[in-house]
C-alpha cells in the first residue's frame, strides 16, 4: 500500500526539468543583461552623462519597472516562469520588496508597509553589508602586511 502510494506521488508530482529551467533562466537573465547594457548606452548618449551616472539611472529604471509590473500583477507570473532569470538580476530585489509591501498594505501604513517591507529583501541587505564588512577588514589587514 505504502509503496503504491509513493509510486502515485512520484508519477503525479510535476517534473522539474533542470535543463529546460536552466535554459529559460539563461535566456531571460541574458535579456536582462542586454537591457541593462542598452539603457547604459542609451542614457550616456541621450542625457550626455558619464557611464557611472548612467549605471545608477539604469538600476533605478529597472527597479521602477519591476515595482510597477509587480503592482500591476503580471510580474509574479513572469517570475514563476523565468525563476532565477528574474530573481538574480536587481529586478528580483525590487520584486521581493514590492510584493511584501503590497501583501501587508491592509495592516496599515506603519505596522503593515513599514514593518514588513524588508521582510524578504532584508536578508540581501543584511548579509551583503555584513559580508562586505568582513571582506573589507580582511582586505585592510592584507593591505597593512
Amino acid at each position, binding site marked *: 500500500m505504502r509503496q503504491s502510494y509513493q509510486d502515485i506521488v512520484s508519477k503525479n508530482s510535476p517534473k522539474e526539468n*533542470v535543463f529546460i*529551467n*536552466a*535554459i529559460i*533562466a*539563461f535566456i531571460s*537573465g*541574458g535579456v*536582462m*543583461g*542586454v*537591457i*541593462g*547594457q542598452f539603457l*547604459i548606452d542609451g542614457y550616456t548618449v541621450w542625457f550626455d552623462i558619464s557611464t557611472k551616472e548612467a549605471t*545608477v539611472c*539604469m*538600476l*533605478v529604471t*529597472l*527597479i*521602477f519597472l519591476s*515595482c*510597477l509590473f509587480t*503592482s*500591476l500583477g503580471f510580474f509574479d507570473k513572469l517570475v514563476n516562469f523565468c*525563476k*532565477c*532569470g528574474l*530573481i*538574480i*538580476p*536587481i529586478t*528580483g*530585489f*525590487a520584486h521581493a*520588496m*514590492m510584493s511584501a*509591501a*503590497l501583501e501587508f*498594505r491592509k495592516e496599515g501604513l506603519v505596522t503593515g*508597509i513599514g514593518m514588513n*517591507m524588508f521582510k*524578504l*529583501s532584508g*536578508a*540581501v*541587505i543584511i*548579509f*551583503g*553589508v555584513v*559580508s*562586505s*564588512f568582513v*571582506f*573589507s*577588514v*580582511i*582586505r*585592510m589587514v592584507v593591505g597593512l602586511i
Partner: protein
Amino acid sequence: MIYLKAFVFAGAFCALAQIILDKTKLTPGHITVIFVVLGAFLDVFNIYDRFVLWAGGGALVPILSFGHNLTHGALQGYNSDGVLGLFSGTLDLTAAGISAAIIFSFFMALIFEPKD
C-alpha cells in the same frame, strides 16, 4: 559585441543559480544571499571590476554587483577616511538602488491594490 558579452555573462549566472535552486533544497532567498556574498567576495581583489569591464551591463544587472558595490564602497571609504570610512562608505554606492526600491515600493503600495 558588448551586448553578446552582457547576454552571456548575465545569462550564465542566472542559469547557475537556477541549477543550484533545482538541485538543492535552498529557497530563492538563500540563492540571492549566496550571490550577494559571492559578489562581495569577488570585489576583494578587484576581480569583479574586470567582469564589469568585460561584460558591461551584463555584470551590473545581477545581484552580484550589489555585493560588489558594497565592498567597493567600504574599501573606497577606508582609503579616503580610514577605519571610520568602512562604516560610512559601505552603502555609498548602493544607496540609490535601496532608496529607489523603498520609495517606489512605498508609493506604489499606496496606489495599487494587491492582485491575488
